């Protein structure tokens, strides 16, 4: 092929990549309102198709057609099937697994690029060497970290933090090995063993750093792993000299980082504290079941009929959902209850804490699935002033995000965390399985307040009973 024709072709391909970058940016921009968000996703898909078609011109189809066929076919089949079959409550683990797939792919692409440099016989250029080893390290952390997050969320392993003595030392040593590998590649000393030691150390580190993370910290970790994969994709772009990967990876990295910081802020904790603080390791108070709390105060247990009456004659009810609603798959019943109440002229609103659930926005998606219109969903800062004007705050499977100690008790481990001011409502009804403390193992004095009543049992069963009782009123 003539050189001129070849470079014209490459010019067109690069131009196509630029269009892809613009599509991704516009796609994300359209996500600024729920109305245009679907258009945004379509624009983003268009960008992806353009990039893939353009890439097709650079491939050696006669040699590798079967690799593309099997890989793409199987990936598409499994991906589309899983994406359609997954329950909305299982969305966090689905996102985790796709995230891990991207991270793993980035690490492998980087390894292939590195081997292309013929590192056994020739010296490795510093820029390509360092970008590939960095990609491999971050991609590997993201890959194994996402798999552990998936296993925890899917409850294939315990969601509680796994801690052991010397944990931080082991992690620090692994990080040191990874850094040493990167430095050796940069200095062109034993590059092949250095590259793969760094890769393996990073893979182990990814596993170990997610192990001590408890369920309630998952929103932070999922966001962080998302930003890691973004960064890995961008670094792959450096290693391949491909701008579309750099731009896309940078967008994802920025998004993941921003969400990570937001989630940390909503828990009043730094990301370092989440990663190394082992919050769940806070000495666990006695998780005794039964209608007395461990602080010795008493709680008032209420009946379905009492609660139904209270709700039906309220002017305004605010529903506060938490992870417990997802576990009980109660979102459809919640919507039904709201429908019945609205028929009786009660105004129903939903208060969403930023870290309710296992990933950012988890509750919003569940309620959207149950056909709750999104204008009824309120962020914490918008709804908090409403609680004093609210007759009943109905708390469904949320705990720590409603704990008034976060506001009042400087000795509490969650002191300073912004919470939903449910205790300011006239009446508080808490739907809860038992008196077990929440994830953090912290007592919630909300349950002992004069105006709080508890309704024990499975959230879905309780709400279904409430629906029935409200109907008869």
């Amino acid at each position, binding site marked *: 092929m003539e050189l001129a024709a070849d470079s014209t072709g490459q010019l067109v391909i690069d131009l196509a990549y630029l269009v892809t970058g613009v599509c991704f940016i516009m796609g994300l921009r359209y996500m600024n309102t729920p109305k245009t968000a679907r258009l945004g996703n379509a624009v983003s898909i268009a960008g992806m198709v353009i990039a893939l078609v353009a890439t097709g011109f650079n491939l050696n189809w006669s040699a590798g057609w079967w690799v593309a066929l099997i890989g793409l076919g199987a990936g598409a089949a499994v991906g589309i099937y899983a994406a359609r079959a997954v329950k909305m409550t299982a969305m966090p683990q689905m*996102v985790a697994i796709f995230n891990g797939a991207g991270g793993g792919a980035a690490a492998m692409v980087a390894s292939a690029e590195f081997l292309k440099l013929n590192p056994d016989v020739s010296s490795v250029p510093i820029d390509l060497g360092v970008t590939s080893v960095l990609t491999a390290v971050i991609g590997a952390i993201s890959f194994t970290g996402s798999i552990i997050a998936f296993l925890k969320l899917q409850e294939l392993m315990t969601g509680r933090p796994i801690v052991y003595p010397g944990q931080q030392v082991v992690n620090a040593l692994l990080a040191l090995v990874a850094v040493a590998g990167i430095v050796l590649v940069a200095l062109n000393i034993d590059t092949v063993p250095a590259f793969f030691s760094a890769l393996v150390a990073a893979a182990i580190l990814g596993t170990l750093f997610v192990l001590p993370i408890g369920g309630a910290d998952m929103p932070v970790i999922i966001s962080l792993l998302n930003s890691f994969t973004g960064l890995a*994709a961008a670094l792959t772009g450096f290693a391949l000299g491909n701008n579309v990967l750099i731009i896309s990876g940078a967008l994802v990295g920025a998004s993941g980082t921003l969400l990570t910081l937001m989630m940390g802020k909503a828990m009043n904790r730094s990301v370092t504290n989440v990663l190394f603080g082992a919050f769940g390791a806070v000495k666990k108070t006695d998780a005794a079941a039964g209608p007395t709390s461990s602080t010795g105060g008493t709680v008032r247990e209420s009946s379905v009929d009492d609660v139904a009456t209270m709700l039906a004659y309220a002017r305004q009810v605010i529903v506060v959902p938490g992870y417990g609603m997802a576990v009980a798959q109660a979102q459809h019943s919640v919507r039904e209850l709201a429908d019945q109440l609205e028929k009786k002229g009660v105004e129903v609103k939903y208060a969403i804490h930023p870290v309710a659930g296992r990933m950012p926005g988890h509750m919003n998606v569940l309620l959207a699935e149950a056909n709750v219109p999104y204008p*009824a969903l309120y962020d914490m800062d918008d709804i908090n002033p409403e609680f004093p004007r609210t007759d009943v705050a109905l708390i469904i499977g949320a705990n720590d995000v409603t704990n008034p100690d976060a506001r009042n008790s400087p000795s509490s481990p969650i002191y300073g965390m912004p919470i939903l001011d449910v205790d300011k409502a006239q009446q508080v009804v808490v739907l809860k399985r038992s008196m077990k403390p929440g994830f953090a193992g912290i007592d919630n004095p909300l349950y002992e307040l004069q105006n709080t009543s508890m309704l024990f049992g499975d959230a879905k069963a309780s709400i279904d009973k409430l629906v029935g009782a409200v109907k008869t009123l």
Partner: protein
Amino acid sequence: MNLFHLLTELTVFVLAVFVGLEVISKVPATLHTPLMSATNAIHGIVLVGALLVAVVGEPKLGPVLSVLVVFLASLNVFGGYVVTQRMLAMFKPRQTPAQATAGAAANGARK
């Protein structure tokens, strides 16, 4: 490639980060899960890289790993976009009661 080239790429990267921060900060909290899933699909662009290293005469990763890298990246792209689309389809503005029942029925029929 040389260090000047690297600097150009770094420039693109840094500017894209700023664009990303600007655009993402406008996304409302109610869409954070679809946003995460959409950005998830976007980093599936690594599929471009996967194809470039796997669909060649003599792939450095060997046949099995070459298929695996394309598989992982394509899982990321297809799964990510489909799940995002599915989630976004559920977000509805306030409806009239008639529409709401129709929506609920459609939802029920899908199961």
